[in-house]
């Protein structure tokens, strides 16, 4: 899926989005960083769904992580700006809501980058059985390793964090708080 030119640091390339001849619109769109999680790209986060290329005309399909995601407009503008800068004249960005984004769409590379940035990557979400959605009255016991010291001795502080897609955790060994990318 993701080829070659992955931005490996959290820095946002400025003015460097010049396409080489061989570069496809997918390559350019795929390395656009997420505005709220700039250490991962849109492709690694799994919100870049499709890039259709017809000569200079490009249609990009993205999907929001959460209904209230405030970054969709910035993502759309980023995509348009970088694709135009890479020489694609006619750029359309479309949103698709279905199927809904799942944290299991984050790529292996994306998970590694989240972890390196101190954000524990998501576990696999539970599968629905078709019946009513079960009520979970206890804090869910997830097997989450502390991204700082590696200890599995961690606990949830709050199911909600600084962005819609993250929960707050703490490590009971190194005592550091950290963020967990929610499994949905």
């Amino acid at each position, binding site marked *: 899926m993701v080829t070659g030119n992955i931005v490996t640091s959290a820095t*946002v390339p*400025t003015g460097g989005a010049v396409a080489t001849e061989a570069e496809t619109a997918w390559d350019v769109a795929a390395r656009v960083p997420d*505005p*709220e999680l700039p250490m991962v790209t849109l492709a690694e986060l799994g919100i870049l769904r499709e890039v259709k290329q017809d000569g200079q005309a490009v249609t990009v*399909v993205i999907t*929001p992580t*959460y*209904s*209230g*995601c*405030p*970054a*969709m*407009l*910035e993502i*759309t*503008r*980023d995509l*348009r*700006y970088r694709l*135009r800068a890479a020489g694609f004249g006619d750029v*359309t*960005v*479309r*949103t*698709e*809501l*279905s*199927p*809904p*984004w799942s944290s299991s769409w984050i790529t292996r590379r994306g998970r590694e980058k989240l972890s390196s940035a101190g954000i524990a990557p998501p576990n696999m979400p539970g599968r629905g059985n078709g019946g*009513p*959605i079960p*009520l*979970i*009255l*206890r*804090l869910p016991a997830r097997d989450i390793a502390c991204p700082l010291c590696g200890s599995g001795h961690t606990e949830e*502080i*709050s*199911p*909600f*964090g*600084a962005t*819609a897609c993250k929960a*707050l955790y703490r490590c009971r060994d190194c005592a550091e708080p950290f963020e967990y990318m*929610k499994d*949905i």
Partner: protein
Amino acid sequence: MSDSLEDDFAAHALAEDTEDHRWAFGTGFTDALEGVDTRVPDGVDAQALAAYCLMLGDDALILSHRLQQWVTRAPELEEETAIANIALDLLGQARMLLARAGKADGTGRDEDQFAFWREAKEFRNVRLVERADGDFAEMLARLLVFSAWRLAQFDALRSSKDPVLSAIAAKGVKELTYHRDYAARWVVRLGDGTAESHRRMQAAFQTVWPLVDELFLTHRVEAALPQVAPDASTLRSEVDVILDTVLATATLDRPEVPPLAGVGSRYGRDGLHTEAFGYVLAEMQSVARAHTDATW
């Protein structure tokens, strides 16, 4: 701020030919359904679909606003963050539903026109979402009832014949599960806590309960949308199981209070609202109405 400086800011925020559009989030809103295929399927009553989306959108919009009023007032930072997150999810749902309504009814009205330029009697939310929370317990009691009900509703809507509604519902189910379980855990903690927390949690349910029956009244709009919208009365047993489980675990009693009456069989869904609604609406709409050419 001088006019020219204001213009600079506006231009800066909107510039797409540089990376400066990243300077701040949420400084501009586009159509929440931009790029989504919003054609109404054959055989679906478009006006009824629009009316139904307004009902669900207004429920989320008004409760979101009431939850936002907790920001800077919550007892702990973690809870404030949680409440703000829940409010944001609901606002996101509201934006998509209001946008859906404006496309389905053919008027092309956008979310802002629905949110800021309708009068109270044109809103279609249930009356449960209107009152100001007296304390943290009231916020939780209402959030539990609301999210358990809305989760059952969205779960049913996942198989709606309208693909936009079913897509909005499929996203919403994941969010609402988090909301319901958050509220449920707090209700158990406070209900089964100290004598004072138990008393206040029980009192909160007494306050909220008269508004519960209305959630399960079948509405004629639902009847006009077979296979698109579930009949609200069919959701009751599923929601009751959840509420009874939480109340029992929290050592709280299920309140026995009469439901708040309608007027001539009109309720929130028909534009009949409580006194509290005028206040929340005034707060929500005043800036947009005072600065008609403002953008954000």
